[in-house]
């Protein structure tokens, strides 16, 4: 049973985030908190235990959140983007989203070629990693364009999932049955984790689902990033037609998340920093923009995590209606983004994890003070790390210095 006090705290946290998204000044700067490999290290467990053992994962998250509370939680077993499988099963709304993230136990069943997990393909202290891969030849663009779902099921899935290599075989049927069993166990565990987080005052419901720029689907799962940037020069019309065909499927998939209760869609952008403004506007942005607008028509906001440098593309956000959503930045200076986007787009990020890893507590205090001094006025800002993963050996006094500084300087 969640205490009234914790229910109130959850409401305050949700309201704080919501105010920033609506470009207002909340009571305090909303802070997404730090997390990643350090959470497991703090609990004295390996990355392998954190990724494969729900009970240990939950206890580690609770320990972390009790000592380092923020406006959004850590916790739950994370996974790697497995979009090709969601696309292949998009006509089954009860399943497509379930397959989107492949976590450690799911990967034990599926054996995805792009996935590397601690205690399996990596040592038990390593971070899980997505390595992508080339799974499609340029001659296959026409097939992809004609039917992205059929193409994903018939061609891509057998190439990326070791245990689905021979569709219809006993091995593949057993794999899907086992996957169903693993998902059912995990759903029960996720409910327990959700209940534990609610007891710590974290909001339940109104969550987030995923979305993908169509070209990132091609880059991450079909052609790999270097080949895709060559394709853009060699087969420009095919790449455009493929992006448009994929858009329809992905919008359908994201709206399945809305039907399950999500109010926001998170896009991790990958190809953005590879492209010049000219190529970005011609190949990447048109279908991404339409995606965001179509979700908006359905009442969903979008959150774009702009991986790498996004400086050259900042002004494209202004083509969207004000209040469309959140732009989170990795390397792009949030101050620079604010100059372009203030009053139009909620900005998220700001804390360079390199500083948290290698600074001193005094330097970190000063760093957060200056950051908040620049970014809080006018609202529309969510503080967070520029990337989600703090490594295991990050000095814990540095982590504490971040939270103390947010407490000190984060009041409006």
């Amino acid at each position, binding site marked *: 049973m969640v205490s009234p006090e914790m229910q109130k705290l959850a409401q305050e946290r949700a309201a704080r985030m919501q105010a920033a998204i609506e470009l207002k000044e909340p009571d305090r700067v909303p802070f997404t908190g730090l997390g*990643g*490999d350090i959470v497991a290290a703090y609990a004295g467990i390996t990355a392998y235990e954190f990724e494969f053992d729900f009970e240990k994962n939950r206890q580690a998250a609770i320990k972390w959140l009790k000592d380092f509370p923020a406006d959004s939680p850590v916790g739950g077993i994370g996974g790697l983007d497995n979009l090709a499988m969601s696309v292949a099963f998009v006509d089954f709304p009860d399943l497509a989203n379930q397959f989107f993230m492949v976590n450690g136990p799911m990967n034990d069943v599926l054996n995805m070629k792009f996935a*590397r997990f601690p205690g399996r*393909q*990596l*040592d038990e*202290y*390593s*971070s899980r*990693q997505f*390595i992508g891969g080339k799974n499609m030849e340029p001659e296959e663009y026409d097939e992809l364009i004609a039917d992205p779902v059929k193409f994903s099921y018939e061609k891509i899935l057998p190439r990326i999932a070791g245990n689905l290599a021979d569709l219809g075989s006993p091995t593949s049927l057993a794999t899907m049955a086992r996957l169903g069993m693993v998902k059912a166990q995990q759903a029960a565990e996720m409910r327990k984790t959700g209940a534990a987080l609610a007891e710590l005052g974290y909001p339940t419901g109104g969550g987030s689902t995923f979305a993908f720029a169509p070209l990132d689907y091609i880059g991450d799962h079909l052609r790999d*990033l*270097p080949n895709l*940037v*060559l394709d*853009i*020069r*060699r087969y420009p019309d095919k790449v455009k037609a493929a992006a448009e065909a994929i858009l329809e499927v992905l919008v359908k998939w994201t709206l399945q998340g809305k039907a399950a209760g999500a109010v926001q869609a998170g896009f991790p952008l990958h190809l953005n*920093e*590879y*492209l*010049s403004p000219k*190529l970005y506007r011609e190949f990447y942005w048109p279908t991404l923009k339409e995606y965001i607008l179509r979700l908006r028509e359905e009442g969903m906001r979008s959150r774009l995590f702009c991986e*790498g440098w996004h400086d*050259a593309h900042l002004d494209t956000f202004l083509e969207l209606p004000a209040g469309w959503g959140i732009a989170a930045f*990795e*390397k792009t200076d949030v101050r620079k983004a604010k100059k372009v986007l203030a009053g139009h787009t909620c900005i998220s990020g700001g804390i*360079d*994890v*390199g*500083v948290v*890893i*290698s*600074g001193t507590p005094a330097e970190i205090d000063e760093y957060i003070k200056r950051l908040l001094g620049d970014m809080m006025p006018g609202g529309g800002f969510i503080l967070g790390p520029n*990337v989600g*993963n*703090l*490594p*295991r*050996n990050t000095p814990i006094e540095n982590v504490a210095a971040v939270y103390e500084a947010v407490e000190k300087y984060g009041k409006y």
Partner: protein
Amino acid sequence: MREQLLKSFVDMDEQEAVKIARELVETDGGAVAVLDTCKEAMEEVGRLFEAGEYFLSELIAAGDMFNQIMEFTLPKLQGEEVASLGTMVLGTVQGDVHNIGKDIFKVMAEASGINVIDIGIDVPHEKFVEAIKEHKPELVGMCCLITLGVDSMKRTIEVIKEAGLRDDIKIIIGGGRVSQAVMEHVGADAWADDAARGVRLSKELLGKE
């Protein structure tokens, strides 16, 4: 012809650049001319990248063109004296299995005249030590994409120190998570979060710029 090759290469006209290179390589002294011109073109592409005019897609396209052209040019250069700026051992550090950034850097570094010994991804600390002993490089390049790599770079450099090899080499770190602060933290000599800067600084560390 050299000027046309240079221009089409730098302008990212792949078909034209490869076509001209194929013709030029058959002429007297053509192979050396193709190699020199392509190196010059790669340097110009790197310069345009650092100036903010070119992006990663241009670096990748240039690297791909360079490799395509070298495939039919290098066999014709056997017996020619090809100057090397120095040797670099290059690898993605232990725990990190990413290769895109390393591979973009590698082709640009090779095009600049650095002899690159690529020891792969997820490279154990000791393997860096062994490679340094074996190849006696002037430079060691360590890459990482994920934050875990920062710890791993620090440890690798410690192991190199313990082996008594640190003073013999310069170390440059590269990848998405590195910065001045990270460089100081791990004890490297230079850092770069893009390939063009990485090549420029590598040449500086070799005393060639």
